[in-house]
């Protein structure tokens, strides 16, 4: 400070620096202040209870105040700014004052003619900080809306199917209601044979529809085993199962996708006529081993083609995994996620 006292130009500079709304402080590396402007003194006073007497102490006080406020405070200078190079601090300190203003502190080492100087700066980033907060909030909201939209899409398809099933059921319900009334009326009086036949026919049709529609309702829960065994038999391959099949629908469908792939490979490339599927349930996964009696030998060149590749992708997307062991024949090891 003293260096400007006798120099009128210095006094002008000093005045200008004091008028600066940002905090400025220059100090020796040990912390002895050379120049502190009004704003910096004020910020320091608000934070620590005294003006800047030692810049190094001020720095550690600010660091403490900033770390108290850490968590949830986005670093404002986090984006790489090509104009700020290495001499500037990587993570600027952010301090929120009691009155809501937000200051960002930065320290810069300067090499001057007569030695090293550390320049401290405090800039008012209140507005920027608020925008940043609002942006973060908005991003969170966008992500949430997007998640809900995805759920909605899933539901549109399901709701449409359910709507159609419901319509079918309502129609059956109405038809049966009408039939009941007609039958009741018919029982109350003598019925002609043709009328009785017609009624009987109507009942039979209605019952057929009922059976069909209830099959449609439960169809999604059918076990895929029966149909797989049927097509395997068509190509002369027997499939043997050991262990309990997954109860989770998704894992069950993945299991059958894997069995189909293994079956296709075994028959097409190794002439197998038997396929073994062993399922073991561990604490958090189903371990499945699929092997065959085909002629694939360890010498055959093996590469993971389209079918196996897409099976691996499907398994990994669902949180499962796949390993091919072609050292002796061809064995497919897969892991399927257990629910939960």
């Amino acid at each position, binding site marked *: 400070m003293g260096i400007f006292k006798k120099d009128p130009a210095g006094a002008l500079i000093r005045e200008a620096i004091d008028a600066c709304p940002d905090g400025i402080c220059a100090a020796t590396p040990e912390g002895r202040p050379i120049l502190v402007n009004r704003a910096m003194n004020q910020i320091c006073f608000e934070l620590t209870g005294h003006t800047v007497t030692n810049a190094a102490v001020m720095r550690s006080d600010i660091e403490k105040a900033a770390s108290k406020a850490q968590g949830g405070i986005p670093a404002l200078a986090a984006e790489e700014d090509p104009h700020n190079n290495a001499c500037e601090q990587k993570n600027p300190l952010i301090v929120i004052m009691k009155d809501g203003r937000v200051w960002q502190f930065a320290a810069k080492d300067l090499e001057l003619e007569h030695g090293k100087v550390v320049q401290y700066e405090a800039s008012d980033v209140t507005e920027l900080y608020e925008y940043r907060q609002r942006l973060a909030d908005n991003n969170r909201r966008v992500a949430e809306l997007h998640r809900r939209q995805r759920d909605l*899409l899933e539901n549109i398809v399901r709701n449409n199917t359910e709507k159609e099933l419901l319509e079918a059921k309502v129609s059956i319900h109405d038809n049966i209601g009408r039939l009941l009334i007609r039958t009741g009326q018919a029982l109350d009086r003598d019925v002609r044979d043709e009328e009785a036949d017609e009624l009987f026919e109507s009942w039979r049709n209605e019952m057929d529809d009922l059976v*069909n529609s209830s099959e*449609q309702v439960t*169809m999604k829960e059918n076990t*895929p085993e029966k149909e797989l065994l049927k097509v395997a038999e*068509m*190509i*002369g391959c027997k499939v043997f199962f050991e262990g309990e099949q997954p109860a989770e629908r998704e894992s069950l469908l993945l299991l059958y996708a894997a069995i*189909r792939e293994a079956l*296709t490979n075994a028959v097409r490339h190794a002439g197998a006529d038997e396929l073994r599927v062993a399922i073991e349930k561990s604490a958090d996964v189903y371990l499945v081993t699929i092997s065959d009696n085909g002629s694939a030998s360890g010498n055959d060149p093996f590469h993971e083609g389209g079918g196996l590749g897409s099976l691996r992708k499907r398994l990994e997307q669902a949180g499962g995994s796949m390993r091919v062991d072609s050292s002796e024949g061809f064995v497919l090891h897969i892991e399927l996620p257990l629910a939960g």
Partner: protein
Amino acid sequence: MFNALIVEDSRVSRESFERELETIENCRLAASIENAANAVIACMKGDIDLVLMDVCTADNESGLTAAAQIKKYSPGIKVIIMTSMPEYSFLERAREAGCDSFWYKETDEIPLAEVITRTLEGDRVWPESEPEVYIGLVSAGEFTKRELEVMRALTAGHRYEEIAEEMDISVNTVKYHVKSILQKTGFRSTVQLVAEVVEKRLILPKY
């Protein structure tokens, strides 16, 4: 004698196709199944000459994917794609897969039996146009190819950024397409659009 495989997951439709097949003299039913992926296996040994293939089959397996597989290994097997869905991409994808014929279950003017006989004789029977579907104020035919692609990505739940990357265009171009689609249809939001597109089955993202 031709051996036919029926792939259809609705029992009512399956039974009606089986009856239809019975009326064709030189055809017999080898098997009826519900899951298209199993059809690929059933066709491996060369006993099947004809496949009547639904597109949206059991457990979300796509009949078009299965048809492409069957045609890849056994191009001699005749495949007829049957669907009741107006999904715009099905026709094109069936052609790409090398399918022989294509039949719209509910709206086609040619009866299935005729499609089967002609296909077995080596004819290719295709509908002249896709069923007309209205999305908001416009017929689906009025969307451009790019707009349809954007709509497909929207129904799959992708964000503008993801769509831009998938289609190798800028986010602003995606927004431009979306705006144009909304203007054509008169919808106020993409949610409304997607709901309509899926409900009318113009786009079925799973198949």
